[in-house]
């Protein structure tokens, strides 16, 4: 999914969002269920985003969703039930696994970071 590769650059252009994640240093898996990305977050910035698997790289939590879920989540006006990360887990289109603390402690940050392609739709291939 090309849209994911563009998220770090979109985040770099969102200083308020980086500020909200300023205390967050975390390794996590984000993206499509079958081919997620390792994301390295430092001080609220995604400093590395690499397709998984990466040999012996650890991660604390994983949020992965179906390709359909991401396409729906990134629509300019998402449909009911497809408009929130936890709506997607409730409808079993996404899975949340691992040590959830960094995700829950920065929940709005992750919701907004993963929604960035929605705000930049023209540049996104979903």
């Amino acid at each position, binding site marked *: 999914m090309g849209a994911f590769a563009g998220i770090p650059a979109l985040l770099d252009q969102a200083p308020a969002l980086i500020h909200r994640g300023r205390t967050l240093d975390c390794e996590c898996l984000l993206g499509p269920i079958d081919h997620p990305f390792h994301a390295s977050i430092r001080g609220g910035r995604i400093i590395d985003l690499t397709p998984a698997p990466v040999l012996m790289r650890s991660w604390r939590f994983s949020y992965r969703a179906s390709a359909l879920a991401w396409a729906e989540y990134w629509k300019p*006006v*998402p449909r*009911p*039930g497809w*408009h*929130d*990360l*936890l*709506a997607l*887990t*409730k*409808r079993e289109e996404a899975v949340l696994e691992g040590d*959830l*603390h960094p995700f*829950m*402690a920065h*929940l*709005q940050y992750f*919701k907004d970071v993963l929604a960035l392609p929605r705000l930049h739709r023209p540049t996104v291939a979903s």
Partner: protein
Amino acid sequence: MTGMIEPMIGRYVHVEIDGEPHRIYFEESGAGIPLVCLHTAGSDGRQWRHLLADEEFAKRFRIIAFDMPWHGKSNPPASWSGEEYRLTTARYTQTIRAFCKALALEKPVVMGCSIGGRIVLNLAIEHAGEFRALIGLEAADFQAPWYDTSWLHRPDVHGGEICAALVSGLIAPQSPDAWRRETLWGYMQGGPGVFKGDLYFYRVDGDLRGRVEGIDTGACPLYLLTGEYDFSCTPDDTRRTAAAITGASVTIMEQLGHFPMSENPDQFRRYIAPVLNQILKQPSFDKQGEHV
């Protein structure tokens, strides 16, 4: 004086709830049929400020919104010694009835949202004769849990941030940013563990499955309205609940989520105005249930 002053007036009323004195903050505006408004879990009566400021509704209704104990400007009672707050079905029901009694409200309409919508169903089950009509927003007899409430109250997660972030997805994407932020601001200001304690009623103690069938909408009309973007109390949850209640009115509200009155008051008004008009057309009954 040049500043615009809104019409609602806030005061405190001293209410005995289960024998314990409580100091309850409420705001009101208008005159006519009492319309008591119940806020959602973990928030407070400010959610109703747009309805309280509605000049048209205020011509025919005395609109009242109170903060539940532990919420907003209603402090915990003086007898509280720090134990974990947990709202129960019985305590919630007692609180509403005691508040209405303290203000000597004659056959009020009660409109509640979320946990307020759930307790409205219990009022319909147990005390229908006391109310002119009941309105449940985002109401169902039960809904499937979608997160672990222990995240709401722990020292290593900011309570205000997590409460707001969890419910942020329940707001419709069409809702104006200013009202979205204000709705979430209410959640950021709750006391530690209060949202979680409210959800004890919602998740554990207040399962009304198998009980709503007994609701007599002939004794008290029941209106259920749910936003299409509410994935906590979904439209299907409300439809399922209503299907078990003969005569219940159901409306699914487009472009609204779990907080219709605060997230998009203009859109909500389109749906609640017909309900309030219908209530105005109801025949009046005296205390013995006779037409007057």
